[in-house]
């Protein structure tokens, strides 16, 4: 068979394959029924497609997904809050009652927790003389109802303040003596530590004072007056939630202890093995109570007594000066920028990961909806 005749055969074969010999089919009628029963919604979409430009639809879809993500930010974070009961909203966040087992559990409560976290961060990072309003403004932004009327005061955050001041003086020893005299021992304040090295103008020393929180500003004012202030930093840490958490767990353990003791009283109905188990359990509960009690007392001490660390340097002590060469400056700059860059990269990746994982419950349905909407959209008009 020649090449041309084979070619003709191929064309004929294709022609035969592409010819309809099945008679009248009236498929259009079946299609009318199918479209009438199945496609009203999609038909409406088809009509929409002609009137609404595709970019507008795409923008709407993106907005919808974005809304879902934002909504996820509000609600998605709340998954890990155990036993939280919303009581009231205020400008700072949510006032809620909770028995969350850790501070992090409470912090994971949506915008309220973020607001709280920001507030807490502001408190922690507040420096210089800006610390004072933080406490005054704290109010009841996040006063856990669980603590109300219990171990904590009703309307004040439990904040541990600490201050660090660097002074310069001609007479280091005399200045340290004056610093030690600032504490009011009768009110429970004390000198936590003193160290001095050197003599006269070459000496340097360090003193740590524990003073009542409400006196901190006064004490700092007096400290500043004793010498030339080289630097000063005040920070605050909000321990409200740790205290509330510890208090709640403490009360719970005490209830368990009481119940175990009541069980012990019915020991005549217990066998020996049961009695031993009961004693063991009671011992463990009491161990936990003591540990939590100590922890709470420590936090309360931190809250009640602010820490003031003062370092004093004699005027004759020259700070170590070292002149770097050009290359050393260059490499130290490179190292600093590298370190800073790596740190920022890590934080960014962490943030992205947190965003992606924390809102996965909203991403997944959002993407599914997007895919379905896109498919419906494509199906709604003739593919051209």
């Amino acid at each position, binding site marked *: 068979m020649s*090449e041309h005749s*084979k*070619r003709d055969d*191929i*064309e004929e*074969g*294709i*022609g*035969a*394959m*592409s*010819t*309809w*010999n*099945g008679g009248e*089919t*009236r*498929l*259009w*009628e*079946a*299609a*009318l029924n*199918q*479209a009438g029963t199945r*496609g009203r919604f*999609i*038909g409406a979409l*088809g*009509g929409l*497609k*002609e009137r609404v430009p595709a970019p507008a639809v795409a923008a709407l879809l993106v907005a919808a997904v974005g809304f879902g993500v934002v909504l996820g930010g509000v609600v998605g974070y709340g998954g890990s809050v155990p036993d939280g009961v919303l009581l009231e909203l205020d400008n700072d966040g949510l006032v809620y009652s909770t028995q969350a087992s850790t501070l992090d559990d409470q912090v994971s409560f949506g915008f309220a927790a973020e607001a709280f976290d920001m507030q807490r961060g502001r408190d922690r990072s507040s420096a210089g003389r800006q610390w004072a309003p933080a406490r005054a403004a704290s109010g009841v932004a996040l006063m856990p109802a669980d603590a109300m009327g219990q171990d904590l005061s009703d309307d004040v955050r439990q904040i541990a303040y600490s201050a660090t001041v660097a002074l310069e003086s001609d007479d280091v020893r005399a200045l340290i003596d004056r610093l030690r005299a600032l504490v009011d021992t009768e009110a429970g304040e004390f000198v936590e530590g003193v160290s001095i090295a050197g003599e006269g103008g070459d000496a340097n020393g360090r003193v740590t004072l524990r003073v009542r929180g409400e006196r901190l500003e006064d004490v700092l004012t007096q400290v500043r007056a004793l010498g030339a202030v080289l630097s000063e930093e005040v920070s605050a840490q909000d321990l409200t939630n740790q205290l509330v958490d510890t208090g709640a767990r403490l009360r719970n353990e005490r209830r368990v202890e009481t119940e175990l003791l009541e069980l012990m009283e019915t020991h005549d109905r217990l066998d020996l093995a049961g009695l031993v188990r009961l004693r063991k359990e009671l011992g463990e509960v009491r161990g936990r109570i003591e540990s939590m009690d100590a922890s709470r007392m420590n936090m309360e001490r931190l809250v009640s007594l602010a820490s003031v660390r003062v370092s004093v340097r004699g005027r004759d002590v020259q700070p170590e000066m070292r002149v770097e060469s050009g290359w050393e400056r260059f490499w130290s700059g490179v190292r600093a920028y590298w370190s800073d860059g790596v740190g920022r990269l890590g934080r960014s990746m962490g943030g992205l990961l947190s965003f992606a994982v924390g809102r996965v419950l909203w991403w997944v349905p959002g993407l599914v909806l997007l895919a379905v909407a896109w498919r419906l959209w494509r199906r*709604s*008009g*003739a*593919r*051209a």
Partner: protein
Amino acid sequence: MDERSDEQLLRAFALGERAALGALAGRHESAMLGLARGLLGGSDALACEAVQESWVRVIRSARGFRGEAAVGTWLYRIVVNRCKDVRAREARAERRRGSDAQRDARHDEGETPGGDAGLRSAMDRLGDGQREVLVLCFGRGLTHREAAAVLGIPEGTVKSRSHGAMQALRRGLGVDGGAV
């Protein structure tokens, strides 16, 4: 016999005249079935399925037809795309079944006697683009320009695909030689 043009019939249907679609189908359904049959390896059953789905698409999109192409071209384009869907669906189903025997049985079921199994097999192995060009040009007798309009591709692409497809077919059918 309705003497209105295809565009007028489509517009009338879009305005609610159901019979207009019947008139349009009377003119084009057979050609659509032929095209679908060629694209779907000569299977009558699959061709009917594809054309019915094409009519559904026409019904839903009639209101949006802007007349940028002839109605016939538009219908062919819809059929070509529906056939792609049907082929993809069938391929998925076959993968699930994992059996070529069923595919052959189904093909045989709706096949017109006299169908060339070798040609069908060689056509099956072509890419969608090449198969479409062959069926439109040699199966339905469209010019390269008309096929290009249906497929929405340049006329030169139609020519090159046609050339490549014929070469592939000849190789597949065991025909030696150079250009077609």
